[in-house]
């Protein structure tokens, strides 16, 4: 048993590698050999995790991944606990359908981060995803609970069909953010394009945003400007074509 399990990328995948077996809580009960033997899908064919990663440590719920994983999909899929730290970019479906724990990505993520598996009604139902970079399209799509924080830009359709939860985008937020939102919050610190089905409510200082940003600073070490913590935000309610209990909050300054 060790404190941390470390996966180091030894063979760069030249095709898409679907590694939905990688989750911090799943590794907490596995030996290094068992981890290496976990099944993955490489270029549509079955393979094992050990063919691409060197595994160090075992039976720990803190997992570190090193290397450029931009072609690796579904990391943290269904994760229910523990902590997953990734030093590098990842492909699509990061933390898809996760229900707990925390993913800290020091790089960019592909589409559907924290979203739902194909055909599923719900995306992530709990936990936290912190992306210290940008995300692809539809981050947080159909998420039910949980938190996604993106220090860079968000793609198109961020939070599309969200049922609840929170998405914070520090960079630009792509078009169509919050479309079909039922509940939940999208907090945009920069440019954001509102769907026509959102209605402006007011400009105010939302107390929960201050609390959340302070938490992100303390827990995740994110550098959040004081003006964003105490600042004013425009509140747009929506999606009024849906339940209409969600919100888009855009920071407008001190």
């Amino acid at each position, binding site marked *: 048993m060790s404190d941390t399990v470390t996966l180091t990328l030894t063979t760069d995948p030249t095709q898409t590698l679907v590694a939905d077996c990688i989750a911090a809580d799943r590794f907490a009960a596995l030996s290094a050999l068992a981890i290496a033997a976990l099944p993955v899908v490489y270029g549509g064919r079955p393979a094992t995790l050990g063919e691409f990663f060197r595994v160090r440590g075992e039976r720990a719920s803190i997992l570190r991944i090193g290397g450029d994983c931009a072609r690796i999909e579904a990391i943290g899929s269904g994760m229910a606990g523990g902590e997953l730290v990734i030093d590098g970019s990842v492909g699509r479906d990061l933390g898809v359908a996760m229900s707990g724990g925390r993913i800290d990505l020091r790089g960019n993520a592909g589409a559907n981060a924290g979203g739902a598996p194909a055909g599923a009604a719900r995306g992530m139902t709990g936990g936290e995803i912190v992306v210290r970079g940008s995300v692809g399209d539809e981050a947080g799509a159909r998420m039910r609970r949980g938190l996604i924080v993106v220090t860079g830009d968000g793609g198109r359709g961020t939070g599309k069909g969200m049922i609840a939860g929170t998405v914070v985008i520090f960079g630009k937020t792509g078009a169509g953010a919050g479309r079909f939102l039922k509940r939940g919050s999208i907090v945009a610190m920069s440019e954001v394009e509102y769907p026509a089905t959102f209605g402006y409510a*007011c400009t105010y200082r939302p107390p*929960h945003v201050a*609390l959340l940003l302070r*938490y992100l600073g303390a827990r995740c070490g994110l550098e959040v400007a004081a003006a964003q913590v105490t600042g004013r935000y425009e509140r747009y309610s929506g999606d009024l074509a849906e339940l209409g209990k969600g919100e888009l909050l855009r920071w407008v300054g001190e």
Partner: protein
Amino acid sequence: MKINGVVIEDTFAEAFTMRVARLLITGRTLGWAREAAVKLTGFATSVIGCKCEAGIERELRDNETPDGRPGVSVLFLTMDKASLPEQLIVRVGQTVLTCPTTACFDGLPEAPDRLPLGRALRVFGDGFQASKVIGGKRYWRLPVMEGEFLIEETFGMLKGVGGGNFLILATDADAALAAAEAAVAAMSGLPGVILPFPGGVVRSGSKVGSQRYKNLIATTNDAFAPTLKAVTRSQLPEVVNSVLEIVLDGVDGPSIEAAMRAGIRAACRPGVEAITAGNYGGKLGPHHFYLRKILG
């Protein structure tokens, strides 16, 4: 035992187990947080008449509160588990929810017993309320005319201690008041303790029951009333002409002891003859604070 010539009587303060919650109230300014706290803790001197006891524990700096704003820590006590949420729901709903800019957070996050305070108050939102989970804790956002009121969903509840006390026996009323003020100043801001009475001081200490009126549960402590020395079984020395009492509630015994130690030492000043404490012979309350042991 004497401190600065003041006799410390060989007796003890008898205190009771109560249920306690700690609320952290923040505001845009310390002034607004304090406004809410003062209203919340108003008319909360004694469970005898108020059904609860409450007070401001201390002021909080920006870096001590969850939302980074100035705030006030309040301790709130009742005699049993059931009445604590009842009292808090009514009082927080009428005093903190109504006060501009405030938010309300749990100050006992480790306590396993949880009071569903925010969960109960959320219905004021009439269906427009929303919740947020931040760092594993759920908060309720209540839309109000000002903007939003934020309150944590549950608050911790511990077994606390109520009724720690000591009495200042002085040669005149001025000396008693000066000593009481000095004691309160020394105890104010100490962690885990509140002084629920006006200015922290009680002039009308009571005894259990009544000699004359059968339906009264508490009446004047005639044994310590100087005007009754000649007509009752007085416990006051000849030279004592005024008595004031300090009552303390706290989260635990050590907090009460530390505050009593600081307060009694500060109260031992010119014009004070003796320090004593109120008890019921040790038969009613499980917490006994022996003055000489505390000060020894």
